[in-house]
């Protein structure tokens, strides 16, 4: 590959990232020295045993947690140095979230849940409607717009969450075990959707998963164990100790 000569610039450059938790006066290191590049358009799967720090790493990348050391450059901006307000704005414009338990607002309909991030923008109600309808059509839930989360199956809820994740057209989608709570069939639907977000919409995706089948969708898989990253067979990334 000619990429060796002129590597595509990384969208996310993680350098020497470290994070530990304090538990009862004891410091428990979770991530020790993570260095990783994610290029624009990548679909990266993060695997590893439970408690290995996958969620911790994902949360740092998504800008909802702060590391103890190291940097995370997103498109050249070190997000670890942003203040709370700036980081919130950055997330609103840049990151789409997909959670294991969907995290929809139970009091809002599917439509309103998807619309929620757009209320932070200057879009008119009309424009918002067009976006929300398109996003719900994309996830195949046009017929379910007026339903509340409790009236939807887990798979449908996760698809609503995916529509919410892409509504403000973020460059990065982070997904923490998005199929972890779903049956086979729903999981397959959700994974197919994630794949489309990556291939059709060009979204960069970082997805934590336990699931082999889920991992197959990713173009690259990294393993996290004992605070360190290692590459799998068919990955483009390199891991640095």
């Amino acid at each position: 590959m000619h990429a060796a000569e002129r590597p595509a610039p990384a969208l996310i450059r993680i350098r020497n990232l470290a994070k530990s938790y304090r538990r009862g006066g004891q410091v428990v290191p979770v991530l020790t020295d993570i260095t990783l590049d994610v290029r624009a358009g990548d679909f990266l799967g993060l695997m590893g045993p439970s408690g290995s720090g996958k969620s911790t790493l994902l949360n740092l990348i998504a800008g909802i947690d702060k590391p103890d050391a190291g940097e995370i450059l997103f498109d050249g901006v070190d997000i670890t140095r942003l203040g709370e307000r700036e980081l919130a704005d950055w997330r609103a414009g840049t990151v789409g979230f997909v959670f294991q338990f969907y995290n929809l607002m139970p009091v809002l309909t599917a439509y309103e849940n998807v619309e929620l991030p757009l209320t932070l923008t200057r879009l008119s109600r009309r424009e918002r409607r067009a976006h929300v309808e398109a996003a719900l059509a994309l996830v195949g839930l046009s017929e379910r717009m007026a339903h509340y989360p409790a009236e939807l199956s887990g798979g449908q809820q996760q698809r609503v969450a995916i529509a919410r994740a892409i509504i403000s057209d973020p460059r990065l989608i982070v997904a923490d075990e998005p199929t972890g709570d779903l049956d086979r069939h729903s999981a397959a639907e959700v994974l197919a959707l994630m794949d489309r977000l990556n291939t059709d919409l060009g979204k960069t995706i970082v997805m934590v998963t336990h699931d082999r089948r889920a991992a197959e969708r990713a173009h690259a898989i990294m393993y996290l164990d004992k605070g360190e990253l290692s590459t799998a067979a068919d990955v483009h990334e390199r891991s640095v100790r």
Partner: protein
Amino acid sequence: MQFAKLVLRNALRHKLRTALTVLGLVVAIASFGLLQTVVGAWYAGAESAAPTRLVTRNAVSLVFPLPLGYRDKIRSVDGVRSVSYANWFAGIYQDPKNFFPQLAVEPRTYFDMYRDYLVPADDFAAFLRDRKGAVIGRKLADTHRLKVGDVMPLRGTIYPGTWEFTIRAIYDGAEQKTDTSQMFFHWDYLNETVKKRGRGRADQVGIYLVDVTDADRAAEVSQAIDALFRNSLAETLTETERAFQIGFVKQTEALVVAIRIVSYVVIAIILAVMANTMAMTARERLAEYATLKALGFSPAFVAALIFGESLAIAAVGAAAGIALTFPVGDWFAQRVGTLIPVFEVSAQTVALQALCALAVGVAAAIIPGRRAARVRIVEGLRAVG
């Protein structure tokens, strides 16, 4: 828009919990209003006192009278427009619990001074003609279903024996806060009877009521009156009617203070209930608040959701509580009859009720609101699993 939707739907999420909280608020706000109204009623006499009116009484104590002869001397003081006088009768109508004030007055000067007692002219003339006649207030008439022409027997306490009066007129109040629970009859009739029965002292006056020409001169005139009788057998104490009334209220002030404290204790209790509800609510929703923050919503937005919900509940409770105060107040007023002459839920009380509800709504949301606003996103999200 989305904000209001979230607030209102969140408030209705646990219908029973919200309903019970609102119910508590309704009871608390209504009780607070009633207790405040009772306190207000206590001061009603003082509040309705005219600034130009003075009361001259025996300096030693109200139980000692003053000679009738003081009348003309007081009238001669510069700045005095008119003088009237009254004796407290303290009779019992049927049953001691039927308390209402009975005053033997000099009718012409008295009703000339108390212009807010509206007496029909014909009836008043009939009253003047009948020395055993009486004028009673509308509330008193309604309480005991009395009408003009009825005979009203009183059992005397200060003035022993049975006294029979014929109701010749019923007065209405010029204002809502005018006391219409009183009974008036002729001072002359009282005096003659005392003379005739040969018991007690005749020609003795309980208090003098003095109308001054200028409210600004009230203090000066008071001093002049008291100076007149210094070193006499019956020295006088003259003060404004307002001060005189407050002096009465002072005797029962401990009770009024207790009622006032209880009214705020009620508010404190509902605040505790409400704060507990909001804390419970916010704790359950930490994951949602964390999600909102992850999506880019500010801590202030999250806090505002909780404040909004708390205020919405408080507003509904306050509105219903205030609305309930009026019918319950009417019922209460009927029950206590003439014991509390003026029982009116004032605009000030309603404002105070609204203010208390607002304070409860805000205060209940402070701790949960701060907690939700400050929750670390990753901690909040972990609360889901």
